[in-house]
């Protein structure tokens, strides 16, 4: 474990049936950092978070290691696993699918505290009430049912209950995607404030490169079950290290101008199970692909303060940034 990392993922491979969902994911999360995890559908970003949270679907086989401090997360059972869940919490995209609709908000929020940590009911409710006000909700919501709350309010309930155990790492899987833009801004504002107040790290999963670049310290980009780039977020658009990141940024319409044509990426994103084992998975869609790209799998290597999984990364340095040519 490198000094200074809160959590490390090394060589994580996950298969479900015949499908290789993750094909060797490497990630390091530093204390108190906001790390973005960006990718299109099937890239494996949610599965990575689920593996970290120890919430893999039944029947999934995994290889590789996840370490928190010195401890191998994969070995946790029983009380150690419950303690881990207090340290690493998760919020999901669709809060309505993850909150029991027939129980009151207060019961949902205090369940983990009472069953896992043996906190008395009255104190658990006090802590839940305090946390609700921190996310900007009236404490009267504790006695309400989920159907009485809007999607944005429920997502704040999810965040508040995830934070009740004072986690060191919060995994947020598209927490604002299903919300209106102004509500998304609120949820992001709340996450940013609480991350500061609680001294915790945040793994922020999103398909939205612009959102990641705006709110994360660093961003990891995934494609076909692998991390293909890790970059300081402020350099993600202007100076990316992988052609896929550059192509993704260039394909988005621009709120500031109408483009004659969008620079679409041909073909469709591959999932990990469709990707070749001995070639770059992005090569068939890549404008920079050379013949070597179809013949060997590139490694994720250090480059200019970030990391890139591209055979031509060094050669292409400085040419991939968003330019005003189109």
């Amino acid at each position, binding site marked *: 474990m490198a000094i200074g990392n809160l959590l490390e993922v090394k060589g994580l491979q996950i298969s479900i049936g015949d499908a290789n969902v993750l094909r060797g994911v490497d990630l390091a999360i530093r204390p108190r950092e906001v790390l973005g995890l960006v990718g299109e559908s099937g890239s494996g970003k949610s599965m990575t978070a689920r593996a970290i949270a120890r919430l893999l679907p039944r029947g999934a086989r995994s290889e590789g290691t996840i370490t928190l401090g010195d401890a191998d997360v994969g070995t946790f059972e029983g009380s150690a696993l419950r303690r881990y869940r207090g340290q690493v919490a998760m919020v999901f995209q669709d809060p309505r699918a993850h909150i029991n609709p027939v129980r009151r908000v207060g019961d949902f929020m205090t369940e983990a505290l009472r069953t896992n940590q043996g906190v008395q009911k009255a104190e658990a409710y006090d802590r839940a009430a305090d946390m609700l006000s921190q996310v900007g909700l009236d404490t009267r919501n504790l006695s309400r049912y989920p159907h009485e709350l809007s999607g944005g309010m429920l997502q704040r309930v999810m965040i508040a209950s995830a934070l009740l155990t004072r986690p060191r790492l919060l995994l947020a899987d598209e927490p604002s995607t299903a919300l209106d833009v102004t509500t998304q801004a609120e949820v992001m504002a709340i996450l*940013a404030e609480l991350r500061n107040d609680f001294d915790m790290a945040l793994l922020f999963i999103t398909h939205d490169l612009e959102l990641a670049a705006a709110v994360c310290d660093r961003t990891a980009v995934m494609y076909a079950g692998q991390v293909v780039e890790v970059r300081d977020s402020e350099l993600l658009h202007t100076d990316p290290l992988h052609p896929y990141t550059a192509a993704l940024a260039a*394909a988005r319409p621009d709120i500031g101008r109408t483009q004659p044509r969008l620079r*679409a990426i041909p073909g469709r994103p591959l999932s990990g199970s469709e990707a070749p084992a001995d070639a770059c998975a992005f090569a068939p869609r890549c404008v920079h692909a050379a013949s070597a790209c179809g013949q060997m799998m590139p490694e994720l290597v250090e480059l200019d303060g970030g990391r890139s999984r591209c055979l031509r990364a060094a050669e292409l340095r400085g040419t991939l940034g968003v330019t005003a040519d189109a």
Partner: protein
Amino acid sequence: MPDVLQVQNLRKEFGDLIAVDDVSFAIGEGESLAIVGESGSGKTTIAKMIVGLERPTGGRIVACGHDRSAPVRSAKKRRERGREVQIVFQDPYTSLDPRHSAEAAIEEVLRVHHGWDKGRRRARVAELADLVGLDERQRAVPPRALSGGQRQRVAIARALAAEPRILILDESVAALDVSIQAQVLNLLADIRDATGISYLLISHDLAVVRQLAERVIVMRGGAVVEQGPTGDVLDHPQHPYTRLLRESVPRPGWKPQRRVSALPVSDRGACPVPVW
């Protein structure tokens, strides 16, 4: 540019709730108009009234010179309306018949609307599938064997099969991956150039609106708060709500805001959306 769609003083009430309040606009031939706003702003209710899935409480809708404010009785009249306006919904997972391949879905529309013989229908299916970029395999398989982007292209081809003058795109590209979304937006621009079709684009994504629509209407709580050329409205928003929408879009150096402090009390107004 003659107007192909006119909406005048449109109103819709659901019990005590006024979902759409005195909305008027027009779309010219080959023009694209966007409606932006949040959940509950009434934008989808407007789309439903235009295609005839909801009946207006008041106001008038005229498409291609025909009044469609009230439902028609006969199948023939309904089909005529289908050739004027078609709609593509947000979710391609629920808007296609799970038993029908892309070919069957498109062919059905051709048979119903144009009554062509089999050979002509087959040729047109191939043209439409080419137009939206569906390959041989994708044309023959049921929707469950297709990705979201491929399904949405089937839905677009199916809507175009009726050869409508107006296509309503109700968050039709919102669920697509970024790389696929760009393909579909380029495709929609090509189709407009080739056919002169008009789009009514309903979207919450201001960048998508900037790319596809020349004019934009901003709605809140059922009413229009601002409208104008897309560039003017997005670059120089006048209404506080439009400014809030614009400021909520992530960008480098973005500081997300909590809503209450971001919008003056006087502008929160009579809005059915809960403001915590």
